[in-house]
């Protein structure tokens, strides 16, 4: 991910799970989709993406399968498992709560000069 936009620890995992909830996808597709959904605001680099994918697979939240890509090449497709879907719900709720709380703190009146 870009240096200017460091994602919080665990956030990337959440984004990957979310993107994969839309359908099975290969690693390159995941990075494209995240960029697209954030209007190119979030650039996930391979150095973060692939370790994260392997980590999530190791946790059995996502599963992988070799398939054929749009450009007719063999690619490794990741998809959400049942456990992954549950994890996504949990993490999304968690994220919503955290961002709400952070927002509350930041929108406190008066003290900012």
């Amino acid at each position, binding site marked *: 991910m870009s240096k200017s936009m460091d994602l919080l620890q665990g956030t990337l995992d959440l984004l990957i799970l979310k993107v994969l909830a839309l359908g099975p996808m290969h690693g*390159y597709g995941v990075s494209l989709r995240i960029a697209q959904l954030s209007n190119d605001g979030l650039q996930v680099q391979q150095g973060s993406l*692939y370790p994260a994918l392997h980590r999530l697979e190791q946790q*059995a939240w996502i*599963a992988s399968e070799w398939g054929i*890509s749009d450009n007719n*090449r063999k*690619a490794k497709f990741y*998809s959400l*498992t*049942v456990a992954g879907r549950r994890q996504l719900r949990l993490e999304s709720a968690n994220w919503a709560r955290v961002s709400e709380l952070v927002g509350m703190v930041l929108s406190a009146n008066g003290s900012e000069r």
Partner: protein
Amino acid sequence: MKSSGNRHLDMLRLRWRSLFRRREMENELEAELKFHFDSLIESYVARGMTRGDAERRARIEAGIPALLKDQCRDERRISLWENVARDIFYSLRGMRANPGFVAAAAAAIALGIGANTALFSMVYTLMYRPLNVSDAGTFYNVHVETFGPGNRSTVGSQYNVSWPEFRFLREASRTATIAGLAEAEMTRKGDPRPVRAQLVSDNLLPLTGGRPVLGRFFEPKETISPGSTPVVVLSYHAWREWFAGDPAVAGKTIALNRQPFTVIGVAGQRTTGPVLLTPDVWIPLTMQAITRAGDPLIGSATTGWIQLFARPQPGQNKDAMQAELQLLAQQSLQPHLPQRQARASVEPGAYMNFPFVKRQSRPVLAILMLAVSLVLVVACANVANMLLARGLSRRREIAIRLSIGAGRKRLIQQLLTESVMLALVGGAAGLLVAWGAARVLLLLIPVELTGRHQLNPSPDAAVLGFTAVISVLTGVVFGLLPALQALRFDLTPALKTEGLDGGGRSGPRRLQNALIGVQVAVCLILLVNAGLLLRGFTHALNMDPGQRTTQLLITSFDLRQQQYDADRSSRFLNTLRENLKGTPGVIGVTASMVEPLYDQCDREARVPAAGSSGRKLRISCDSVAPDYFSTTGIRLLRGREFTEAEMRNQAAVAIVDERFAREAFGSSDQAIGATIRLIDNADHQVVGVAAAVRPLDISGSGLPRVYQPLRGIESQQAKLVVLYAGSPGEMEKAIREAAAKVDPTVTAGTKRIEESIQSVLIPSRLAASVAGGLGTLALILASTGVYGLVAFAISRRRREVGIRMALGASRGDVLRLVIWQGLKPVIAGSLAGLALAALASQALQAMLFGLSPLDPLAFVGTALLLTAMAAAAALLPAWSALRIDPAITLRVQ
């Protein structure tokens, strides 16, 4: 991989794949990243970039592929194992490339670990190793200890039980099958060598898993009524030696202790009994009386002499046996000692697992363990220094690996793997060293004197495990410092050539010096104490023990085995003394219970005897015949010797030594005529005061001594002491003939007092040689350490030496500089070592025979020895440094 729907199952399958389908996983990872890379290029080309630009851009984005793959592997948690495997491979390759270094380091480690393994396997073999019986895991020793009111004595180990107690325990136990055993030395007609017998219950041999190769073992009815069944089972070797393996031996008769025994069977070769010494024959427990004439133990309810063994009955275990036998042991005392308490403990079978042995050997073992660990410390410091030096020359390699992205943690892991591998090689060599040493030591045991033992020195799983664990620990210990040190530097200069030189930085050099200091200090601790023990030993040889140490012959007889009772024994000794007095060459003849120079008795005396207000004094004791003091050369200061009449009448008289007289009465004069009360509750009148002797027996009490006239029952085991002129061989023959004239069946064993001194000093000689051996090991290690340090320092400073010499420095200057560098840490280490040795030597006081634990000769002598060795070790490489041609060294750079 497709999901199975069950998360944990998925995870398990993934782990499995990660671990065992590595190649497949690697290919997939490669393909996955390649796909990403290609897709990126395509997308850039689609946006209008040239192919070249697109590739460049994609490559930048991909980062370092190796690192990325590493991270992915890390996520799979397999990298640890994979890395270990790779590091092992890598370090093996490194070792093959540097055989000299590996040999030097492994040799140092082998010495350190070998000493530790040897001690471990000795202790383990004696105290913990399963016995040589079938199914050893379910074979137990049972120890019964009793305390409280009532008199109960034991013969042999203090955990032995009496005959009625044994019968009760065996009958009553529902959890255990209990067998009993006692050992005895017997005499076989026509055989001058003692016969080692095991007295056993009928079930003992079957319980050990033994089988007869001929005939049968004992039947239950043969071990019930005392004295009724003179039958014998021969050991395999006795059958071969005595009967030349005669297949018709069953039914034949042999005479043991003058009693004819019928041979009923021969045990198999592997049936060797469940105790340390293997017997020549087995006889029933019920035949005990003939092994100890005049003092049969089998008739006494309160004398323990039977050692217990047990196996759990079907469905039972150790805990159940422990619980039940505790109750039964208490009940077994009920008939004869109702007030007394019993404590039973069930221990996995081993030769010496007696609680008191474990307790008493602890201090000695602690000292030994400390000593061998110190040797290992020296070895570790030594190898750490080698690794440090090697680390300096490997800086460039390490710098390169760091700069291409290897993590520091990974590098430390790799360096540690290397040192652990090195330690394992050294440990394996150490195991061989220890094994060889154990075999040699066992060969040195005089089997004719001690009996055949069944100690097995070959390493088993426990010894291998110990060596492996200690090797790995050693590897980590000596590898950690150099590994950390190797990574502590700036990359930039290290990558350039000057980084190779390592000059100017004091960190590693200081560490190297500290390690040399540690080696020297620890080495000195070992050496000083070895020196002290050696000095103590020679001191003991040269000191005046207060009695004659030459021209005495000490003879013992097998009167007990020959069924002699008290009366007959004293008659035998008296006649023999009388007859010898007229023999030419005999100057004096007497007898004593305790062998001269030994100290085997620890009792109490009450002074004064009258009234209950008497003071109790701990004493050592001896029982002696008339003429004892004149014969042995112990000076009588006051009073007189015992008379023949006093000995025959068991008169209540005593001779005390000077120390006793002083402690009990203030002076020798006051002691004469006073009465003291001894353990038999009889009052003895002091008729003489003798000079104090100095026993050489370090296990002895060293207490004030009281002599009593030799009593009948003691004569059974008393030693005849003869002062002679002329040749000891002639005199020995004369004594043998004189004894044969009284009773030709009695066997006489004679030794000269000089031999006696040698054997009584065996423990101190052993201690001195073990300490000396360990000290020598440490000295060798420390010297090679100093040599290595100086040689290394010089090789680093060749250029400096070259410049100095080119600028006109004399050889002497350079030599002084180089040697001084090497000796500085030696001197610092020596000072620290001397101080620590002074602390440690206090523990040896008992073995020094009055020598001060701060004996200056031992301290200064060993410090000088060590410094001289270190100086020589430094001089060797320094000398070769001087042959450097300045022109060449300057050009090298």
